[in-house]
């Protein structure tokens, strides 16, 4: 807390000014007339000299100890003004003061928002709060003056001024004291009418010399006494107006309407002023102060006599109790000026004014209890108020001071309207007291309490309260803002619009940048409205634009905001241009600039594909840079591009920009004339504009738009209109088409909202920072992206594929046509093409254009050879070159067939790029590429699976099981044929087709299985190793011949190519396995009637299943060949049975095979190993038989062929032995078979399972086998069941 002298505080200063002795002035009209010459009333003339900074007068009041007064002030009032101010008049006056302040303080509309400077607020209150508050508060205090319940407004002296011009001046002086001319307060007993008087004779020197005046003065002195009469000569400046350097009146005269301030006192010479000074000083020191001293002493004596001491107090109490009954009125009993209570109050106030605060306080205390007992509340409050102030000045008890002020304030408030003015004054003093002690927060609450019913009054008080929150430590900014808003609301209610705007603008500084959007919107909206009501539409629009992004508001509020906004904009009478229009919201992250240099795009979707994807696709087609070096011309062109490091676009071709517009509101907004804002300059050599220019651009952007829009001869921009529904987001494509060579720069986008307001968005500024940083790294300037070098027009191919379906079922095979057009006059040549997904799209041959589809797929049985030519390797993965001499130009389109097959289900993005060179050599760009992109959705159709297992009974024959499930929800398919593609495979159906498809079609969700026999065609195996060139296929038709006669040729043009790609795609690990089979299933949508469907009728669909290995158990297959049933007479000898084993090596290499025959498990499985190498070595294989003795032979006597399997397995076990070699080793050549003799011995009749042998095979580890590590090199095959029944022959 401060240890400041209370008198030095603002409140102390205020009290020294306001609670000072009153001098009542009475003057004749001629006195006024004389002073009027100076533009002043007589009172005004004297006023500046009523305040003394160092009067230095000794004062002795009640105590004997004298002290000196330094600062002193008198208040001058005309007698007519010594009365309670008229309330109505006072209110009017206050209102005027506020209105004037409103005009004066009204912020410049262009000025920035006021900033809250917290550091400054610590220095001084007065630097932050508007100065007119102090003036207003002074007025408010003054309004409460001349109340009958307090005495410091009682005149202490009466100054009577008569002019020397006046007739009979002595009589005039006497006349003044006619009682009916005195103020009513003096007459009705509220004030002491016996005021001491001072007689002043005023002489106007312009009227002539002062002879007459001196004569009158002597007369006066003889009549009224020597000391009480003074002569004052004014207007000594006879020769003309006199300018004062420091005009003493300037600060006192507030209404400058009458005359300019420097003219004030123009006839008063310095001598005159000195004379006035002396007059006032003498008046104070020689009359007023001594008079007051004297009165204080007299009153003090009286009070001491009647009220001090125990006896007096008791008496007083007794007396007052008796009076109680009559004192019912609100204001208590009426006290005459000479009642003891009034006298005590006068004593207190006089003491206060002479700064004997101890004396004042003791008297206030004394009277306070009296008034309280008397229930004279207003007087009580007045005394409490003074007590509070005295406590404050004495700096004794802060608590006491505050208590007194609060008590006084509350008491005044209780009085209602009677005490309202005093309550305000008391509150203001209280507030100042709190402020002096840094209790700003408490001060704010008092301001809040002062707010009466008067709206204007409360508005000012609320505003002052808000500043208290700002000044409190720590600052309570939010409360500051809130009270400003409250205050602004009140100002608005009493039409003080300018004040309202001012307060709201201050509040804005608090809410700005916070996320309290409701409050922000409210403040901006009202400022906007109010500015509009003042006709300041420009500023209004500025504020209104802040609230357009109000997605958090309710729909009705949004409508209100928008409609008000548009109304204001309309009132401006012009199309308004706003650089920060938030409606609609532009999503800058979606911004894409598409321009075509050597890259051209067939469709917008093609432009959306990643550049890297295109690059990798075009890599092979484009002439490489190293190759370009051979051609100096081309090298140069590249250099040009490099030097400029700039985007290139072609005259006449549009640069497209796509950007997303979003409507954050719930109501729809019409957007019109959305265009790109571009800058064009004709020079191509212009290097990238320097930084200075771009910064300048920001300032006068709006101006530049206008220039842009008018000067559009060298380029064209597209215009888009659309309606954005509530919450909608729309992608907009805009374009700018340069017409001539030069430089084109895209600056931003502009649009018109609701036809009245133009918004602009600068792409450059809106770019996310991250992007810019990234660009800096690569040493690109940020505006690179939007700057284009325009080169002269060159041909551009237009291309399309039709009819490419958007949706297709998997397997669907179509014939498509690529159509290329070149509208320009120059031809293009050297066309090349590449397709991203050759599995889906392949390039056909020119002659395919003529053939009819799907008839061209029909198998042509008589010309097998022609089909053979189709080498599927031709089109794989390489660039397709259009025939030499192909040139596209003019009206006629260039057509080329394509084949499409929906290979697998899913969303497929097909990209193709067409390269062409430009005939005109003079152009910078030598070649261009046309990029086409299509999306195809492939739906699943049939789920096809194959299972292959070998026949046990026949070598190189397999059973194929085909499972087909219709995966569609509604479509039916007709399965036409299954063809095998591979090495010498023949396929045939096991059942008749009719039995498989009774309804001829496969309904949605239906599943079927059918079985085929797959057989290796032996007749072609002799053709040699080159199997790939001579594939033999076999087709198994699933449709009865009566219905459909077509057999599709899977080796015809598109099918074989697609099959090739499928093969590549379905590559499995067993690459070297030449023993695989591929299947092609051909089916088509089935329509019983004219059912409109997804795909066109007569279409063909194919499913390709590749790399099915037939050798599931290994590279070898074998067959045991021997008798099934034998008759033998066991009585003669055991039975020796010879059998054969055929082993086929289906692998591509010589395989080592070892056959181990195992005797029955019960015998201990003894294996004898004898190496016998067949075919490679010619060892003796025939020879001895090692016959293992048989122990515990179990011979089933009743063994019958018809016995059950269980019996067989039990009893057939180990009742035979393998004779001959128990282990045979052999090498089998690739793709060949050998025959091995086997022999068993049977000792009793029965049925035997000859499965206990094992085939071990081993591939050579070197050679082909090495290519695939995963491949199995060796394995073991268990023998399979072979039953032999031996019967006892009779």
């Amino acid at each position, binding site marked *: 807390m401060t240890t400041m002298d209370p008198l030095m505080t603002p409140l102390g200063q205020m009290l020294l000014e306001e609670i000072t002795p009153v001098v009542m002035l009475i003057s004749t009209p001629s006195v006024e007339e004389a002073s009027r010459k100076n533009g002043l009333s007589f009172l005004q003339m004297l006023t500046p000299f009523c305040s003394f900074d160092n009067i230095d007068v000794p004062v002795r009041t009640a105590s004997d100890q004298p002290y000196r007064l330094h600062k002193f002030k008198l208040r001058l009032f005309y007698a007519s003004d010594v009365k309670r101010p008229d309330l109505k008049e006072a209110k009017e006056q206050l209102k005027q003061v506020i209105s004037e302040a409103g005009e004066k303080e009204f912020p410049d509309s262009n000025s920035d928002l006021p900033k809250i400077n917290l550091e400054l607020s610590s220095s001084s209150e007065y630097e932050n709060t508007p100065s007119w508050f102090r003036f207003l508060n002074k007025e408010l205090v003054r309004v409460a003056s001349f109340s009958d319940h307090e005495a410091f407004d009682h005149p202490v002296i009466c100054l009577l001024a008569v002019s020397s011009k006046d007739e009979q001046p002595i009589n005039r002086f006497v006349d003044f004291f006619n009682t009916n001319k005195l103020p009513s307060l003096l007459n009705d007993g509220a004030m002491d009418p016996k005021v001491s008087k001072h007689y002043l004779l005023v002489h106007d020197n312009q009227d002539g010399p002062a002879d007459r005046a001196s004569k009158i003065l002597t007369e006066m002195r003889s009549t009224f006494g020597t000391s009480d009469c003074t002569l004052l000569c004014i207007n000594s400046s006879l020769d003309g107006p006199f300018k004062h350097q420091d005009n003493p009146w300037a600060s006192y005269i507030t209404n400058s309407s009458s005359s300019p301030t420097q003219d004030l006192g123009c006839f008063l010479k310095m001598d005159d002023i000195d004379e006035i000074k002396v007059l006032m000083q003498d008046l104070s020191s020689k009359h007023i102060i001594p008079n007051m001293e004297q009165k204080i002493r007299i009153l003090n004596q009286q009070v001491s006599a009647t009220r001090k001491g125990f006896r007096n107090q008791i008496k007083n109490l007794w007396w007052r109790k008796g009076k109680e009954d009559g004192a019912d009125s609100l204001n208590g009993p009426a006290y005459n000026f000479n009642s003891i209570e009034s006298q005590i109050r006068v004593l207190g106030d006089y003491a206060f004014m002479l700064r004997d605060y101890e004396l004042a306080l003791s008297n206030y205390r004394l009277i306070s209890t009296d008034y309280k007992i008397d229930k004279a509340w207003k007087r009580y409050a007045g005394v409490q108020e003074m007590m509070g102030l005295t406590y404050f000045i004495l700096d004794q008890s802060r608590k006491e001071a505050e208590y007194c002020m609060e008590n006084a304030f509350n008491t005044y408030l209780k009085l209602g309207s009677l005490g309202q003015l005093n309550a305000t004054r008391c509150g203001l003093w209280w507030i100042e007291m709190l402020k002096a002690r840094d209790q700003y927060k408490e001060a704010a609450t008092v301001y809040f309490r002062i707010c009466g019913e008067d709206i204007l009054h409360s508005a000012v008080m609320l505003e002052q309260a808000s500043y208290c*929150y700002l000044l409190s430590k*720590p600052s*309570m*900014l*939010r*409360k500051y*803002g*809130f009270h400003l*808003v409250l205050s602004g609301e009140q100002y608005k209610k009493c039409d003080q619009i300018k004040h309202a705007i001012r307060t709201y603008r201050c509040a804005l500084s608090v809410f700005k940048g*916070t*996320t*309290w959007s*409701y*409050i922000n919107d*409210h403040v901006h909206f009202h400022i906007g409205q109010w500015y509009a009501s003042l006709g300041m539409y420009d500023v209004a629009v500025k504020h209104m634009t802040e609230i357009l992004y109000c997605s958090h508001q309710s729909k009705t509020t949004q409508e209100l905001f928008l409609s008000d906004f548009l109304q204001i904009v309309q009132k401006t009478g012009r199309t308004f241009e706003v650089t920060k229009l938030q409606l609609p919201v532009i999503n800058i992250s979606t911004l894409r600039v598409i321009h075509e240099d050597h890259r051209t795009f067939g469709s917008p979707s093609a432009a959306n594909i990643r550049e890297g994807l295109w690059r990798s696709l075009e890599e092979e087609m484009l002439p490489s840079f190293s190759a370009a070096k051979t051609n100096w011309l081309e090298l140069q062109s590249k250099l040009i591009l490099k030097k400029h490091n700039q985007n290139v676009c072609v005259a006449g071709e549009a640069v497209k920009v796509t950007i997303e517009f979003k409507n954050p509101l719930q109501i729809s907004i019409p957007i019109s004339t959305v265009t790109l804002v571009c800058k064009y300059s004709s020079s191509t050599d212009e290097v990238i504009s320097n930084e200075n220019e771009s910064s300048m651009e920001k300032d006068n952007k709006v101006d530049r738009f206008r220039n842009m829009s008018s000067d559009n001869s060298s380029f064209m921009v597209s215009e888009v209109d659309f309606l954005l529904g509530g919450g909608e987001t729309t992608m907009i494509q805009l374009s700018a088409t340069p017409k001539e060579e030069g430089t084109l720069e895209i600056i931003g986008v502009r649009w018109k909202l609701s036809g009245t307001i133009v918004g602009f968005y600068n792409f450059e500024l809106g770019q996310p920072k991250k992007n810019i940083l990234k660009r800096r790294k690569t040493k690109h300037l940020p505006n690179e992206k939007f700057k284009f070098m325009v080169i002269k027009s060159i041909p551009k191919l237009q291309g399309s594929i039709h009819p490419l379906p958007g949706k297709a079922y998997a397997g669907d095979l179509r014939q498509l046509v690529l159509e290329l057009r070149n509208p320009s006059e120059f031809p293009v040549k050297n066309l090349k093409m590449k397709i991203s997904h050759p599995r889906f799209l392949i390039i056909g041959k020119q002659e395919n254009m003529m053939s009819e589809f799907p008839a061209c797929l029909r198998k042509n049985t008589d010309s097998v050879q022609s089909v053979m030519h189709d080498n599927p390797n031709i089109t794989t993965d390489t660039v397709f070159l259009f025939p030499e001499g192909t040139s596209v130009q003019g009206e006629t389109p260039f057509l080329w067939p394509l084949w499409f097959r929906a290979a697998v289900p899913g969303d497929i993005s097909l990209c193709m790029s067409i390269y062409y060179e430009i005939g005109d050599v003079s152009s910078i760009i030598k070649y261009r590429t046309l990029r086409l992109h299509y999306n195809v959705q492939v739906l699943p159709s049939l789920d096809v699976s194959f299972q292959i297992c070998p026949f046990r009974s026949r070598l190189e024959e397999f059973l194929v099981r085909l499972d087909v499930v219709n995966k569609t929800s509604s479509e039916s398919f007709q399965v036409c044929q299954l063809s095998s593609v591979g090495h010498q495979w023949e396929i045939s159906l096991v059942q008749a087709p009719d039995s498989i498809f009774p309804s001829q079609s496969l309904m949605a969700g239906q599943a079927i299985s059918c079985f085929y026999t797959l057989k290796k065609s032996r007749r072609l195996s002799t053709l040699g190793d080159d199997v790939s060139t001579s594939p033999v296929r076999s087709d198994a038709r699933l449709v009865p011949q009566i219905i459909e006669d077509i057999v599709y040729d899977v080796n015809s043009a598109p099918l074989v190519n697609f099959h090739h790609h499928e093969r590549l795609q379905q590559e499995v690990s067993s690459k070297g396995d030449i023993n695989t089979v591929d299947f092609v299933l051909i089916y088509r949508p089935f329509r019983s009637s004219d059912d409109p469907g997804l795909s066109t009728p007569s279409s063909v669909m194919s499913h390709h299943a590749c790399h099915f290995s037939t050798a599931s158990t290994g590279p070898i297959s074998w067959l045991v060949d021997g008798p099934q049933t034998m008759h033998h007479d066991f009585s003669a000898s055991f039975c020796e049975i010879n059998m054969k084993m055929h082993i086929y090596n289906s692998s591509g290499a010589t395989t080592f095979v070892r056959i181990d025959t195992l005797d029955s498990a019960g015998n201990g499985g003894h294996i004898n190993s004898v190496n016998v190498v067949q075919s490679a070595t010619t060892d003796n294989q025939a020879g001895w038989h090692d016959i293992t003795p048989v122990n515990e032979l179990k011979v089933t006597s009743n063994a019958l062929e018809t016995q059950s399997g269980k019996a067989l397995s039990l009893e057939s076990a180990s009742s035979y032995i393998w004779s001959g070699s128990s282990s045979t080793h052999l090498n089998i050549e690739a793709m060949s078979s050998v025959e091995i003799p086997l022999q068993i011995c049977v000792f009793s009749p029965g049925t035997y399972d000859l499965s206990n042998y094992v085939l071990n095979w081993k591939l050579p580890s070197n050679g082909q086998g090495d290519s695939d590590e995963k491949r199995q090199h060796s394995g073991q095959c268990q023998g399979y069941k072979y039953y032999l029944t031996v019967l006892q022959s009779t």
Partner: protein
Amino acid sequence: MIVCVAVVGHQNNPLYIQSFTEADDALKLHHIVHCSLDVVDERVNNPKRSGPMLNETFLGLLYPIENYKVYGYLTNTKVKFILVTTDLDVKDADNLVLFGTIIKVGVTGNRKGGSGLLTRNGDEGKCKEGGP
């Protein structure tokens, strides 16, 4: 009667304000809640002045305004819960229980993918610790 419940983030940003009155007083409540942050700040900076409390996180009566009383609750993560009531005589203990419930609802509702009051600042888990 509870007039309004508000949740304010640790940067004094409004996360959630729900008024329970029929009247269209959203703006007023926004202002009241916004102002209460001043008092919250003051309480946090001068903890001794508010005297002994039931729970350190419970800020008690922040200030009375018009016919309302504003209570505050501060979690460990500086998320503030503000309660505006018209009840003139409420015990602090009752309010504390109420805040506990509100926070619980806020947290559990969040877990169920409900209001999502706290997820924006990732305060979900921590918030529970601050609860009674």
